[in-house]
């Protein structure tokens, strides 16, 4: 069994009376994609926000290897090796692709807040930024201002930024949302490569993508995990079929893909 990079145990997040996430335990393994699926409002984004530290859990614990990260703020989690993308693209829209990624690399360089010397002159940061831009397949767009790119390219940029922070675990919240077919295919290929030496947790509605990518699958409904395991195992569980009653075709279609 492969190494567990990120382990969350019995996570719960309450908003007043609403349990957005309840009793969720997930593992993210090295060299694996762990997909989380579920209907709208199931608590998938909340789960990612808990793992990234954007939202503090009501109870439960999170570990990166041996390190307890439950109470670390988002910036410290990023330094601990957790990188993430957001459901709504979150980039510096007025900066170029390279500057976006350079910032990400800077945050994880030797002196991220150095007060002297021009930011662009750090060769090590520049090299790591260039490598991340390349890995995300955006080298030809390096000098383009982010807001002038297509939606799909902006999402690729967000992944390049995550890569530049040299994460061990990558959390992706609906990376394919709003993409056309060709863009989605490119993104699926990119995500498939991301797991090399890292762990990936992905939330996605697109079943074709989920079944193409997932090594492990968790299904959430109303904040609770109703099933978890290998995609083949989960797909055939009666509870999952019941939760998706009427959408059997989609699960079948995904399985056939």
């Amino acid at each position, binding site marked *: 069994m492969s190494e567990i990079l990120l382990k969350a145990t019995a996570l719960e997040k309450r908003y007043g009376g609403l349990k957005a996430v309840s009793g969720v335990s997930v593992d993210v393994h090295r060299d694996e994609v762990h997909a989380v699926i579920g209907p709208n409002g199931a608590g998938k984004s909340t789960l990612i926000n808990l793992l990234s530290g954007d939202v503090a859990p009501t109870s439960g614990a999170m570990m990166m290897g041996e390190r307890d990260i439950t109470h670390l703020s988002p910036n410290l989690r990023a330094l601990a090796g957790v990188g993430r993308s957001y459901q709504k693209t979150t980039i*510096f829209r007025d900066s170029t692709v390279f500057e976006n990624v350079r910032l990400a690399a800077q*945050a994880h360089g030797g002196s991220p807040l150095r007060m002297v010397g021009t930011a662009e002159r750090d060769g090590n940061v520049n090299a790591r930024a260039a490598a991340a831009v390349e890995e995300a397949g955006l080298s030809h767009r390096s000098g383009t201002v982010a807001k002038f790119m297509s939606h799909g390219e902006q999402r690729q940029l967000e992944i390049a930024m995550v890569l530049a922070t040299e994460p061990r675990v990558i959390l992706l919240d609906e990376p394919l949302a709003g993409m056309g077919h060709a863009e989605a295919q490119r993104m699926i290929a990119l995500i498939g490569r991301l797991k090399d030496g890292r762990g990936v947790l992905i939330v996605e509605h697109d079943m074709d993508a989920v079944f193409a990518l997932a090594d492990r699958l968790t299904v959430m409904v109303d904040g609770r995990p109703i099933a978890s395991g290998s995609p083949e195992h989960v797909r055939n569980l009666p509870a999952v079929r019941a939760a998706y009653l009427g959408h059997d075709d989609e699960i079948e279609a995904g399985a056939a893909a």
Partner: protein
Amino acid sequence: MKRLSKIPSAGLIAAVLAVAVALPFVVSGYYVQFASKAMLVGMLALSLNLVVGYGGLVSLCHAAFFGFGGYMLAFMTPEDGGASLWLSLPTALLVVAAVALVIGALSLRTRGIYFIMVTLAFGEMLFYLFHDTKIAGGSDGMYIYFKPELVVGGRNLLDLESARTFYFVALALLAGAAVLVKELVGSPFGRALAAARDNERRALSLGFPVFRVRLTAFVVSGVIAGMAGFFSASQFGFVAPQMLGWHLSATILVMVVLGGMGSIIGPVVGAFALIGLEEVLKTSFEHWKLIKGLVIIALVFLLPGGLRQLATLLMPERVDASATPAKPRSDEAPANV
């Protein structure tokens, strides 16, 4: 980054510096003093812009640091001679830094309009601390009878009584502050500060300690303001609570907005324009304050970007981590599992 685009060329800077150096030899003493005052106020506006323009934080207590710098000089000037610059300046700046650290640490936990309100409240508190208590002459303020001295080996190297010497000190301070802020905004630190302004959530999830970055900028900006206040108090030989009140804070903000938040020098130009305008109107009209208000309103509406830039800062993107509703997708079946 888009807001850094209006950097003046080296030639222009050299020309302005040449004029500035020649000025005290060609105009009368009154104007030399007036120019010195304007440069210190320009330095004040420039320091505020580090927080407002580059940090995206609209602070309304900036005069407090200016005033504190001045009051520190008043406290440290003995009854029978000038204060030692060696001792009084670093002490004043340390105290201002401490005040900025406390105010910043508390107010930077809030965002947008709440940040404005909290900084305003701090500014008012400090104003009334000096206005209503006897620690520094209450509403009458304090006189500073002697200029600070830079004594080396028994000789004062810096005769601040001389209007011309003072002018060059003010010029050097302004230029020094401009270089410092320029260095800062171009450095990795400055990029982190701007990143936090443009997208706080992303800056955090990249790993930047946003709070610490902002607090550092807030303190640096406060210390530059304190330096300007220290020398302003020295120039006028007088400090009063108005020096740290919200009225001055708001005026500096107007200078920053008028001059433009996108450059280092813009706010200095804004300061010069406003002070110059005041000077001209004062000598020509009885109700000059009313006319000044009208001119400012007109300028803010006419200048491209001025008001709009401020508005975007007052309404920053929501930064809490609440879920964003999923957008309907055109490329998939209606039932999106």
